[in-house]
Structures are given as structure tokens and as C-alpha cells.
């Protein structure tokens, strides 16, 4: 695999013929070993997952190679640190298929909230703050009716109480 990977022109897209997938090789992913492991994961992920364990990328290498489906093409991207989460939904994250799409996203805003979210997510201690989801206030907000004025939930607290790390 590593030998095969070394021949991929970095910064180019690679068509995986026959399966209709495109692999985009970003500049940063220049280590053949890293690439080959990602491609390995990617190819494995093409296999249909067993019924009992759906394909749920989470905190490992898979995080960088989550798949998404677009209208006409499927592709995978990794290594740019922005494909993690904080997105619309972490199960099927999306990738940018063309340079133009990348340019549009950068044009919309130079901020990259996903970077920060990834850090918060890694540092979070599981279970902390879960009580919030059970509170009357949270439910009131979550299920509020349109125009009721309760569409905004404001969690207030002093520095360090864990507002950022609420799950």
C-alpha cells in the first residue's frame, strides 16, 4: 500500500476507478505511511458495515476520513483539522469536493469554530453536565413553540463552572 501511495501526486484528487469514489490528497498529508493508513481505513469503510455495528466514526483516525454523500459524487477528505465535528451532524460529515467550494467557505468567514470544538470535545470529561438535559428549563427551550419567546436558552455562570463543557 505504501508504495502505491507514494505515487499519488500530493495536492491532487485521485479517482478510485470502478467504485466512483474520489480521494482528495491534501498537502498536509504528505507522509506515505499516514496516507496509506487513511486509505486503508477508507477502503475498509467502503464495505457495508455489519448490521449490529453501524459505521460511526468518532475519535480515532476515522474522524479524519468520515464519509458523506453528495448528490453526484462521494469523496473523502482528511488532515485539515476542520472536518471533525461541530458540523451539522457528526455522523455524516461533509467534504469539499472542489477548490471553488473551499474558496466559498473561506470567503464566508475566516473563523474556524470546528478547531476549538475539537479541543473542547477532547478535554471534556464524560458525564459532567449531563443533568442539564433533564432540567425543566432545557426541556422548555427544546420543546418551545414558535413565537413563544422561549426560543433562547441562556446558561449563565461564573468563569470555570463548566459552561463550555456542558454536554
Amino acid at each position, binding site marked *: 500500500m505504501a508504495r502505491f501511495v507514494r505515487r499519488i501526486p500530493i495536492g491532487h484528487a485521485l479517482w478510485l476507478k470502478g467504485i466512483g469514489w474520489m480521494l482528495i490528497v491534501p498537502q498536509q498529508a504528505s507522509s506515505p505511511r499516514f496516507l496509506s493508513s487513511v486509505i486503508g481505513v477508507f477502503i475498509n469503510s467502503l464495505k457495508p458495515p455489519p448490521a449490529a455495528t453501524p459505521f460511526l466514526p468518532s475519535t480515532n483516525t476515522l474522524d479524519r476520513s468520515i464519509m458523506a454523500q453528495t448528490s453526484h459524487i462521494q469523496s473523502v477528505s482528511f488532515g485539515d483539522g476542520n472536518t471533525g465535528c461541530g*458540523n451539522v*451532524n457528526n455522523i455524516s460529515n*461533509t467534504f469539499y469536493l472542489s477548490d471553488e467550494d473551499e474558496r*466559498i467557505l473561506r470567503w*464566508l468567514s475566516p473563523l474556524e*469554530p470546528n478547531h476549538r470544538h475539537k479541543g473542547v470535545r477532547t478535554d471534556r470529561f464524560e458525564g*459532567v453536565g449531563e443533568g442539564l438535559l433533564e432540567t425543566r428549563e432545557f426541556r422548555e427551550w427544546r420543546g418551545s413553540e414558535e413565537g413563544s419567546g422561549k*426560543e*433562547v436558552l441562556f446558561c*449563565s455562570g461564573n468563569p470555570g463552572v463548566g459552561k463550555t463543557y456542558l454536554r
Partner: protein
Amino acid sequence: MIDSLCDQAGKQDIAVAGLYCDFLSQHDQTIANIMGAILKQLVRRGGIPDHVRKAFKTGQREFGGRVPRAVDLMGMLKITISSLPQVFICLDALDECLPKYLPDLLESLRDIMRVCPRMRIFLTGRPHVVGDVQRYFSEAVVMPISPTPGDIRNYVEMRLNRDTEPEAMNAVLRADIVRVIQETISDM
């Protein structure tokens, strides 16, 4: 919070966008950039909508690639949010947003809410910004956050278990650490 909503989003058709206001980058966190960052997260999912692509091309062509203005981004956000079944916007640490931007930010959110009443907004911040939030959202649900004693105990014990010098620890010291930290935090 973003993850909890995302977990639910996996099951339902919900879009979640979030941003951490940050004292260190507050000068970059202008209204335009914040609105752009929210829009960016929303359009990542299903491909970039035509109206956004069109605005980009127009901007490139007519103004030599100038950055979008807040008013342009607001328009695109409204169209995008209206086209999605339900959108959640999470903004963390409102108090770290530059004070001069905060009224504009809240005003912009209220403006979007008028057009997109299905949207839900989740905000966090220190208690002194409650007044600002209520000025724009008088009915906002306000919830004071403090860690529960159980949360603190679990966290401290987890850290103690990872101590790099376990031989320096004994049961009495351990119990003392857990007790003192819990007492101190409950006074915060």
C-alpha cells in the same frame, strides 16, 4: 452541548452550528465573521446552496473578491435557515465577545429569529450579560449553571487516578483533596 444536539441531529433532521466567542480573538470575531462562521457550518452539510455560490461569484466579479458584508451574510443565513427543518445555533461565552459587538450580535440573532421562528438559540456567558440577552430576548429561558457535587467529585477522582506520582498519595490525603475542592467550588 453541540455534541448532544448533534447526537439528536443524527436521528432527526436538525442542523447545529456553534461558535466559541474567545477573548483572544475577539477582534476577529466581528458580526460578519460570526455570521459567516455559522453559515459556513450550515452549508457544509448538503453542499453549498446556489444562492451562496451566486453571491460569491458576484462578489468576485464585481468587487474584485471583496469579503461579504454582514448584511449579505444575514440575507444568506435567513435563506439557508428557512430552508432547513430545524436549526440550532450555539454561542459560547458571550461575555468574551467585544462589548461593542454584543448588541449587534444579539440584534442580528433577533432579526434572524423573526424570519426563522423555528430556530433555537443556545447561549452561555457570565451572569453580567444576562441583562443584554434579556434586552433582546425578553422571554429567554435563563438557567444558572453550577457543577453538581457529584460532577466535581467524579472529575477530581479521575484526575487523582491519573496522578503521575501515585506513591505520594494516601487515603487521607486523597479524601482531603476531594473534600476541600468540593467545598471551594460550591462557594464560587
